[in-house]
């Protein structure tokens, strides 16, 4: 009798548990989380004025490439959130700008990693530090980010961990309006040298796989693309050419300072900005991302004459997204009177750039909102409607 009772109560318990589980599982579908907005209802991304690209998130205010930095950028009106993608020792794609962890995490304070400090050659320069490629994801996650520049707000140091590429994507997809992503295939030569995937795939393959896994696809301004906007950027032209076979997402060719050679093809600035090179690369990329001081070289902290880089790019149908715009007066040339808005005005209205990588998403957003009157916006919308009809 007792055994029967025990058995029956066991069964009842299990059934109740099962019922509870299935009901709560079912209920997740019946009551979608309040923060999820169906794609069809999301406010689309603007495409009629220069793109506000949140460089490493709102890193003027929060430590770069962390979840809060990206969420702040979205709250402040970014069109795109930008990131640098590398790989950990165990092949997980993470958001981190430097090849080393020294400048933006507390790794130097971690006794358990004291022996990981080493020296590698990176783009022909011997570099010493704690390298991302020597840490597993689990280990990386124990670190905490810190603000890179000492003149920026230090109060969030030690609070946030590094994030993965997938987490970065989720932040964008979870936003209540359409927010684009702008990830970089970062240091592919170095990463592929140090990280091997068991199936013989490379950083570039894993990078595109991740994007496709989350539904990113489509040419620039296609319906697919407008739902989930994305630019793929890299300083390594061969990586961009390589992935052209795998995805038709728009790509951006980054161009470094005049003294720096490309890490994969060892080409000089003059080579990769020549007419013939632009004629070649324009079939693979729809934009260039140059360092702004090479577009208009400063002298004694004054901007003088502009080069013809923007004109050449535009003539070949390529957009121009220079980097990086910062509010601090030490970064502002004297023409701008220590006023970041005057700098935005110059680049957007005088030089006609199509996007800006900024550390201060909020400032660029304010500038654009305040200077586009609603009439102007309407005319710009009409212009873009007319030009897209021209294209088709």
């Amino acid at each position, binding site marked *: 009798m007792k055994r029967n009772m025990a058995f029956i109560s066991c069964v009842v318990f299990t059934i109740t548990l099962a019922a509870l589980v299935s009901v709560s599982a079912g209920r997740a579908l019946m009551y979608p989380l309040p923060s999820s907005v169906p794609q069809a209802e999301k406010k689309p991304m603007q495409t009629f004025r220069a793109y506000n690209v949140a460089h490493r998130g709102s890193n*003027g*205010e929060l430590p770069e490439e962390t979840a809060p930095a990206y969420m702040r950028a979205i709250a402040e009106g970014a069109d795109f959130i930008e990131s640098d993608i590398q790989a950990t020792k165990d092949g997980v794609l993470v958001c981190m700008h430097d090849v080393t962890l020294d400048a933006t995490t507390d790794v130097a304070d971690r006794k358990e990693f004291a022996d990981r400090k080493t020296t590698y050659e990176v783009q022909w320069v011997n570099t010493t530090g704690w390298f991302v490629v020597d840490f597993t994801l689990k280990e990386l996650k124990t670190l905490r980010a810190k603000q890179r520049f000492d*003149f*920026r*707000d230090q*109060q969030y140091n030690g609070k946030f961990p590094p994030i993965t590429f997938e987490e970065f994507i989720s932040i964008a997809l979870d936003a209540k309006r359409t927010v684009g992503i702008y990830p970089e295939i970062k240091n592919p030569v170095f990463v592929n040298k140090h990280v091997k995937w068991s199936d013989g795939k490379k950083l570039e393959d894993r990078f595109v796989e991740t994007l496709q896994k989350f539904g990113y696809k489509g040419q620039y301004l296609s319906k697919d693309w407008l739902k989930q906007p994305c630019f793929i950027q890299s300083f390594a032209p061969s990586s961009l050419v390589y992935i052209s076979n795998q995805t038709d997402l728009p790509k951006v060719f980054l161009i470094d300072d005049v003294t720096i050679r490309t890490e994969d093809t060892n080409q000089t600035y003059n080579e990769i900005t020549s007419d013939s090179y632009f004629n070649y690369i324009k079939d693979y990329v729809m934009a260039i991302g140059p360092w702004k001081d090479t577009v208009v070289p400063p002298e*004694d*902290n004054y901007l003088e004459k502009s080069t013809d880089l923007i004109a050449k790019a535009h003539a070949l149908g390529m957009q121009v997204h220079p980097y990086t715009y910062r*509010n*601090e*007066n*030490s970064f502002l040339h*004297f023409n701008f*009177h*220590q*006023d*970041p*808005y*005057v700098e935005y005005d110059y680049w957007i209205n005088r030089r006609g750039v199509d996007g800006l990588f900024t550390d*201060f998403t*909020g*400032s660029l957003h*304010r500038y654009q909102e*305040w*200077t586009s*009157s*609603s*009439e*102007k916006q*309407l*005319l710009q919308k*009409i212009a873009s409607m007319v030009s897209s009809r021209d294209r088709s």
Partner: protein
Amino acid sequence: MGSPCLTLFALLCLVVGTAARPFYPLPSKVADGERQPLQTSRPYNIAHRGSNGELPEETTAAYMRAIEEGADFIETDILSSKDGVLICFHDFTLDDTTDVAQHKEFADRERTYEVQGANTTGFFTVDFTLKELKSLRVRQRYPFRDQKYNGKFHIITFEEYISIALDATRVVGIYPEIKNPVFINEHVKWPNGKKFEDMFVETLKKYGYKGSYMSNEWKKQPAFIQSFAPTSLVYVSNLTDLPKIFLIDDITVPTQDTNQSYWEITSDGYFDFIKNYVVGIGPWKDTVVPVVNNYLQPPTDLVARAHAHDLQVHPYTYRNENLCLHFNFNQDPYQEYEFWIHKMGIDGLFTDFTGSLQKYQEWTSPLSSRDSSNETSLLHKIAVMVSPYERV
């Protein structure tokens, strides 16, 4: 016989003719009635020492730049030379903003005096005649600002400063300070027992400055008289009804003439007294909203109490450089303007960057919608073109 008479007559006609008809009035002279009046609908843009973010402070160039950039008022500090000429200069010593140290002929002029209870060593303006002061050249005070104008401009007099304002092609107000009156009166003596304050008001009257705040006379030639010394303001109240502003220093600094503490002079009782003599106060902004670790704390009630006593509030000083911006503003001077104008509700701002404040105000509370009129008329044209097709 008649010809000398005729000649004389002809000469007379010529004289009369030329005297009566200015054939070609100087282009900069705009008839009074045609000048764009002072705006009074939004907080005053007060060019603190001229546009000194860009040019050396208190020079002709700095004031003319400020007027170009849209200042409502140009501000200055009035001190005296040894021979009793009123000059525009902020510090009582010449060391920080002139090349006096390079003038061997003045090497023996260095002195130590007590100023507001502290012994100060340097080259004092009160030990140099105007002629000697004019041989000096001004330089930019801050090393992080544009140094390219150093050594180009000289010190100007109160009268020269007034002429700059009166010569402007729109109505530009002046905002001179009775600076360090206790110290000046100790070191400089004028004939007929006149004091610094007497000479100050005489100069204003000589150029036609008069009238209470918002009177017709005042609006033609707007002026505020400011001082940290309440007795000077009370004293000049008998000499002119031009509006006066009581400047309030940091909480640790007592008044130079009455030795009263910050707490005394900001008490309700004191406001009750001083409001009979001044139309407003000019506090240091970090006393209005205290700062801890470069973050703003909850505001004090100073603005509310001042307003309750019908006193305007014109805080000082707003600067674009990130080291001067508290972290709440994300290194963005426009966000600081936004906070003070819209959250704190102040009535005027002393700024080193006239152009930035002007842009902020024009973009967010424009005086006229003339910017959008082009777009509006174009849209109107389009509407007119479209409407016949609609009917069909």
